[in-house]
C-alpha cells in the first residue's frame, strides 16, 4: 500500500484534485437544475410578472414620469411566501445607481440580514436590465434596494419572477469559479502531496 502511494506523481495528484473539483461543481449545478425543474413541475415555482406598484415603497416617491428616491437607503418590499429563484427587471435612472442588492427572508427570519443578500448583475450588454438569481429557495419576503443615492429619478419596467432558465444557465462559469478552482486545487493538492510524504516518510 505504502509503496503504491509512493509511486503517485505530483502531476497525478494535481490532475485528480482538479478533476474532483470540476466534477463536484458539475454535480452541484446538476442538483440545482433538477431541484428547480421538479419545483416547476409540481407547481410550487411559477413564473409571474409584477410592476413597481405591487411593491411596498419606502423612501421612494411616485412622480409624473416615474419614481424618485428620497433617501440613500430607499427600499421596495414584497411580502409574499413563495419559492424564489430569480428576478429580472428593467430600471432606467438619472444617475448610475451603484450597487443594487436584494435581501430575502426565509421562513422564521425576523429581520433582513447581510448573509441573505444577492447582488443584481447587469444582463449581458444592457445598461438598464438587471438580474438577481440564486438556487431555488422558500422565501417569505424580498426587498430590493434600487439605488445608493437620494434624488435618483428611476423608471421601472416589469419585474419578471422565476423566469425559466436554459439548461446551460445552470452550468454558467464565472471568473470567481475559475479563481477558486485554481486556488483550491493548488492548496488541496499541496496538502495531499504533504500527506504522501507523511505516509511514506520521504521528503523532497
Amino acid at each position, binding site marked *: 500500500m505504502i509503496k503504491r502511494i509512493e509511486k503517485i506523481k505530483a502531476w497525478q495528484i494535481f490532475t485528480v484534485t482538479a478533476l474532483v473539483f470540476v466534477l463536484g461543481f458539475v454535480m452541484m449545478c446538476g442538483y440545482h437544475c433538477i431541484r428547480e425543474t421538479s419545483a416547476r413541475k409540481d407547481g410550487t415555482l411559477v413564473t409571474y410578472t409584477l410592476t413597481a406598484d405591487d411593491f411596498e415603497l419606502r423612501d421612494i416617491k411616485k412622480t409624473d414620469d416615474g419614481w424618485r428616491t428620497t433617501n440613500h437607503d430607499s427600499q421596495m418590499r414584497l411580502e409574499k411566501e413563495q419559492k424564489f429563484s430569480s428576478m429580472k427587471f428593467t430600471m432606467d435612472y*438619472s*444617475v448610475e445607481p451603484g450597487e443594487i442588492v436584494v435581501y430575502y427572508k426565509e421562513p422564521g427570519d425576523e429581520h433582513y440580514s447581510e448573509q441573505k*443578500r444577492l447582488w443584481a448583475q*447587469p444582463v449581458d450588454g444592457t445598461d438598464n436590465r438587471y438580474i438577481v438569481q440564486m438556487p431555488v429557495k422558500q422565501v417569505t419576503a424580498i426587498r430590493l434596494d434600487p439605488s445608493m443615492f437620494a434624488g435618483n429619478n428611476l423608471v421601472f419596467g416589469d419585474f419578471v419572477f422565476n423566469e425559466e432558465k436554459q439548461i446551460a444557465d445552470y452550468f454558467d462559469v464565472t471568473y470567481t469559479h475559475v479563481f477558486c478552482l485554481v486556488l483550491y486545487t493548488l492548496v488541496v493538492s*499541496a*496538502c495531499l502531496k504533504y500527506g504522501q510524504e*507523511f505516509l511514506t516518510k520521504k521528503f*523532497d
Partner: protein
Amino acid sequence: MLSSVAALFTIIIFAFGLYALTGISRRIAPLVGLVLLCDVAMVRAMGGGLYAGTLAVYIMAAVVFALALYTHRKDLCNKLKGFFAPGVVLFVVSSAVMLLVLRQTQPVMHGWDEFSFWGTSQKLVKQHNALYTYYSSSMLGKSIPPSMAVLTYFFGFASGSFVEWVCYFAYDVLFFACFAAFTAVFEEKQPHSAFMLYTAAFMIPFIFEITEINSKLYSTYISAYGDIPLALVFSGAVAVCFCTQHTDSRRVWPVLPVLVFLTLIKDMGLALSCIAAFVIFFDMVVGIKDFSFVKIRGFFGKCAAAASMLAVTGISYIGWSVHLAKVLTLDRSDFGGSSGMGMGRMLIAGVKALLGIERDRKFREIFASMISAFFNLKVSMFGSGLMVVAVITAVFAAAFILGDKKGRIRTATAYITTWIGFIGYYVFHIFLYVYVFRNDAYTLPSYDRYMYTFYIGWLCIGLFCLALAVKDGHRLLSRTALFGFAAGCLLIVSFYADRGNTFIGVNRNSFPKRELIRRKAEFLQDAISSDDVIYIGSEDNSGEHWFIYTYELADNKIVQDYFVWDGTKTEDEWDEMAPAVMTQYFKDKGVTHFLIDNVNEEFIQRYGDRFDVPVDEIGLNYVAYYKVNYNENGFYFTFVKGGAA
C-alpha cells in the same frame, strides 16, 4: 495593457540578470530588481528628470540582461531553468493572472485617501512627467515621499495616458515580488511548502482589511493606499536578508535598495526601515558564524552591514527632505500638526509624558484609549490587537518548538526584536495622535490601518521562522503547522469574503459616487481653464464629493473649505455663511469660479438671487459652473456652463 506587460517583462529580465551576474538568491531577485529600478528612477526624478530616469532604467535592465546572456552564453539553458524556482514561477503566474483580472474588471480609484493623495499623486505624475512637488495642484499631501508614484509611473511609462487600474497592477506586482522573496528559505526543491507559504502571504492582507462579514467592497489588491505596501515591503526587506543562505555581501547589499524604497513609501517608512535593520542585525549576530561584509569579518562585519543599512535609510530620508526644502521650501522636520512641534521636540515631550513627568489631559486620554483599543478594537478577522499578537506568538512558538537548535535561537531573537519594534511603533503612534492629530485625535482615526501595517509585517516574519523550521527542523510537524496555518487563512478568508467584496467581484456598479463626479467633471472640462481657483458647493456633508473633485480637477486650485448645505444646518450656522461673510472669504482666497455640485431648497432661498441663471434645476445628476464677480453688494455669479452630466 502593453505598457504593463513591458514593465513586468523588464522586471523579470532584470531580475534574471541580477541573479545570473551577482549570484543572489533567485527568489529575492524580482523584489530587489523591481525596487532597484524604481530607486534609480526616483533619484533622477528628485533632480527633475523623471522621464529620462525611467527611460534610463528600462535601458539599464536591458543592458544587464544582455550582459547576463553574454556571460552565461554557454550554460544559458541551465541558468534559465535554475532561475525559475517555484517562488519565481508563482510571482510570474500570479502577476499575469492579476493583469488579466484587472484588465477585465477595470477598477477605478474609489477610497478616500486615494483622492487626497495616493491616487491623485499618481495621476499628476503621469500627466506632468515629473514629481508632484514641481507644480501647483489641489493635492493635499505634497510632502509624502514618492516611491509608490514612481512605481506606478514605471508601469505606465509606455502608455500615452494615465490608466487607473495600472496603478493597482503596479502595487500587486510589488506585493507578489515580496511574497516570492518570502519563499527564499526553501532554496532547495520544496515546491508545495513554498506554495503554501505564498498562499498564506496572499491571504494575510485580506485578514486585516476585511473585518466584518457584511459585503461592502473592500479594496484589498485594488487600493492605492500606502499601508499594505509599507507592511509587505517591510517584511520583504527582512526576508531578503533573513531567508537567504549567503554569508557574505550578497546577504546585505540586496537589502539596501529595498530599504531605500521602504523609507520613501510614506513618512512611517523611516521607522519601519529602522526596525527592519534592527531585526536583521540581531538575526545576523545570532544566526551566522562566518560572516564577511566588504572584507570586514565577524562581528564587525555585521556592525558594518547594520551601519550601511541605517546609512541608506538616513540618506534617503534626508534626501527627500532636502528635495522638499529646495523645491517647495518646506521644512519637513516641522510636522505642522496640532502642537506645531518638530520631530525632536515631539519625541522629548512624548517620552517625558510617558514617564509621567509632564502629562497633560490630552495625553492621558489618548494614552488610555490607545491601551484599551489594543484589547477591544477589532482590527482583523482574528479579532483585536491582542488576538493578533496571540496568533503571531503562536506562529513564533510553533517555529521555536519545531525548529532545530540554530533555528530556535534565530526564532527567539526575531520574536524579541520584533516585540521591541512593536512597542516602539505603538508608542510612536501615541505621540502622533497626541501631538500631530487635532481634535479628531480622541477617536483614533485610521487606527486599524496604522496598526495592521505592523501586524502584517510581524506575522510574515513569524512565517519566515516557521519556514526555517520546515527546512531544518522537525520535518513532519513543522509542515503540518505551515500547511495548517495557510489552509486556516484560506478558510477564514473564504468565510469572511465573498465575490462581492474582493477584487474579483468589481463591476461598473461598484464605484457609483466616483462615476457620478467623473461624469460631472468631464462635462465641465472644456469650461474650466487651468488657472481657475474653484470653490465647490454641495449638499454632501461628508466631504467625499469634495475629495473626488480634487482628484478629477487635480490641476486646478480648489479651495480647501467646503460649502455644505445639508438639511441639518441651524440658523446660527447659516449666519456664519451669510453672503457678506462668504464674499470676504471668497476674496481672501482669490476664488474665481463657483462649482455647484447640487443644491437644496434652503440654499436657493438664501442665495438664489445672486445667480444670473437660476440654480433650481441643479439636482443629483446636474452640475453648474459659475464665474464669481464682486460688486458693492457682495458677490454675484454669472453662468459659464451647466446641465445634466
